């Protein structure tokens, strides 16, 4: 007798992903789809895609998706959720979208306690535009716009958005996870599920910050990129539940 | 009838309300009306004014550059507007707030201690409505019959103030 032990989530399309080898987006996309399947909410989900590498996430997700202007993602999600409070609305944003150009939107959306879920992918660089410094770039990290490494004097400090959001009364659940190792991937899935459940229970704003790899613009192999998160990145961005 | 009115004074003297009342009454009397306030930073600290057109004709600009009537509740407003009044026009001055009213040929000047009269009535804030009553009494183009309705419209949440405002209007009307 045949037994299916592994399959593509129903919420995923058959399209081949355009992401680079070793990139974390594919893993995170899939985790979201697994959670949506498990919660049985595919027909109730409306996602808002960012501007960045994940802009065409709708090619891989088999549910309703809207684009948004760069950083305005939470404002668009706010509009959707207010009109359709029974739907499950989430944004998927990178660190340029959420932590730079969209800082105002994310803070005020969280502070209003909008009952949406935010999946915030932090890989410390702008990927789509060619590897420039992001607000989340580590001190000393070399990027296209910090050739000698990010300097505190010139560029300031890595921005710890989740810690900021956790301080807001409107935010109900905030957790930082990572996808650099199988164990962490499972924790990430759990966190995403909890975030969606927070929304389904009408408890308010939920966000999962996921540390992710960008081997290409880190100038590392896929394996080295995973190691870098474990050895370096989580020192600046410690994992765990920040609120909730 | 083509009445172009400027009501002016300090913020808090009910300048906007005075204009709204005249426009509302004009509308009820079957005229075309417009009301235009001074707004925003313009009204911070200094004087406020509202401009009212009441006309048989379709009203072109709601901006009143040469008023046929000016109701001024304080001195800065008098200084600002006295020279703009059309020949044959009317100036109603609140002498409680203006100690000396300059002579001006070609216009009719009516001096009334509006603030003092209002406080005698029991509420200093109805000085504006005494002026409105005086205007109606002098110009005779608007009827007094719809006062109650107009007051109900512009003071919907202040039922207790309606009767004293009505008294104020009647007082102004009688005084002139």
């Amino acid at each position, binding site marked *: 007798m045949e037994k299916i032990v592994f399959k593509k989530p129903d919420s995923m399309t058959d399209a081949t992903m355009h992401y680079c080898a070793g990139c974390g987006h594919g893993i995170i996309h899939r985790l979201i789809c697994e959670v949506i399947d498990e919660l049985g909410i595919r027909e109730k989900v409306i996602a808002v895609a960012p501007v960045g590498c994940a802009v065409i996430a709708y090619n891989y997700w088999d549910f309703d*998706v809207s684009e948004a202007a760069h950083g305005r993602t939470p*404002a668009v999600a706010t509009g959707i959720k207010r009109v*359709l409070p029974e739907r499950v609305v989430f944004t998927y944003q990178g660190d340029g979208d959420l932590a730079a150009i969209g800082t105002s939107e994310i803070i005020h959306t969280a502070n209003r306690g909008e009952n949406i879920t935010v999946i915030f992918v932090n890989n410390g660089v702008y990927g789509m535009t060619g590897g420039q410094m992001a607000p989340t770039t580590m001190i000393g990290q070399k990027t296209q716009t910090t050739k000698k490494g990010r300097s505190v004097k010139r560029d300031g400090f890595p921005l710890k958005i989740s810690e900021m959001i956790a301080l807001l009364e409107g935010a109900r659940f905030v957790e930082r996870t990572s996808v650099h190792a199988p164990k962490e991937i499972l924790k990430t899935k759990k966190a995403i599920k909890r975030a969606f459940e927070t929304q389904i229970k009408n408890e308010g704003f939920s966000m999962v910050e996921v540390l992710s790899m960008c081997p290409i613009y880190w100038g590392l192999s896929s394996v080295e990129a995973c190691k870098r998160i474990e050895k370096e990145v989580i020192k600046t961005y410690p994992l765990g539940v920040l609120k909730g | 009838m083509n009445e172009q009115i400027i009501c002016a004074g300090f913020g808090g003297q009910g300048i906007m309300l005075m204009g709204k009342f005249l426009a509302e009454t004009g509308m009820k009397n079957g005229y075309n009306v417009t009301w235009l306030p001074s707004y925003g930073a313009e009204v911070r600290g200094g004087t406020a004014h509202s401009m009212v057109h009441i006309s048989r004709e379709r009203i072109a600009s709601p901006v009143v*550059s040469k008023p046929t009537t000016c109701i001024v509740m304080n001195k800065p407003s008098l200084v600002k507007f006295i020279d703009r009044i059309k020949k044959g026009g009317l100036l109603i001055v609140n002498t409680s707030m203006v100690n000396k009213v300059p002579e001006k040929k070609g216009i009719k000047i009516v001096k009334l201690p509006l603030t003092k009269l209002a406080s005698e009535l029991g509420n200093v804030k109805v000085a504006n409505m005494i002026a409105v009553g005086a205007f109606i009494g002098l110009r005779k183009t608007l009827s007094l019959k719809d006062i109650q309705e107009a007051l109900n419209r512009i003071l919907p949440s202040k039922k207790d103030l309606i009767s004293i405002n009505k008294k104020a209007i009647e007082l102004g009307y009688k005084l002139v």
Partner: protein
Amino acid sequence: MKKSKIQNPKSKTKRILITGNEACGEGAIQAGCRFYAGYPITPQNELTAYMSKRMDEVDGIFIQAESELAAINMVFGASVTGARALTTSSSPGISLKQEGISYLAGCELPAVIVNIMRGGPGLGNIAPSQSDYFQATKGGGHGDYHSVVLGPASCQEMFDFTRMAFDIADRYRNTVIILGDGILGQMMEPVIINPRSQIRNPKKWALTGCKNRKPNIIRSLLLKQGALEEFNRKLQKKYDLIKRNEIRFEKYRTEDAEIIIVAYGTSSRISRACVNRLRKDKIKAGLFRPISLWPFPYNALKSQDKGKTKFLVVEMSMGQMLEDVRLAIQDDKRVHFYGRTGGSVPSEEEIIGKAVSCKL
């Protein structure tokens, strides 16, 4: 959305004295708009305040957004779901909204945007102005697109046009801009509020969750070779259709006119009085008033031209609609201009003086 009382057919027609800002807001409510997001800016604050009150009364949604950007993008989100959505602002705020308007155009999402124009550039002042004509009618944001632009000239039209704007927006999946100014927003006039029943078709493209259908996608990113050009050609066809259907204008005493004043909005109501005064002085004057500023009534204006007719464009700007009038008439020597700017409003005397001088 919460159960909304789309209309109350029993409520009677009434004539009330209200500001243009309030009339505009009521027009939206009467159009069945139940989503508003805005940010404070003078001279349109009464409109935001009015919507906060009215949305409460009709179980609609009101959000005071953290920025103009957020406001237009909340409207984007509401429109994504198929809801009728409104945002309003004044010139500097409308500049900030341009990004969102471009995205709305790129995604073909209907929305109504009200601009109560004030003096510019920069922070300018808060007095009435008509200096955002270029921005409104020629696109405003990036890309090849147009919003339908309507220029009301009274509080009644602030009501009527805003209500109509939602129908136009839905019909073409397009943005519609109401281009008012500080005077039209702030002034009070009698307005007839006549409730009207709503007929609305479901929007099949809207995102509502993919129950019993394939997923819908709202997007403006088209990377595939040739896809964006194809989309732009499709947009252009839609704009051509709008040009055929939605041109609006008003003529006043133009039949035998030797000089025609061309003006919209507040300038047009002052110009109308000038026409009457000029006629009394035996000068054959008329008024042509574009109501749809985009699409602009080029042909209708040109058809007023008897070969020697003089045209005087009057605007509260340094001459923006002037360029469209020149395009229509194709003889710059006969197209004159009078403008006041920086918050100044042209007087009848000034316009008449200019009209007399170009008549010579």
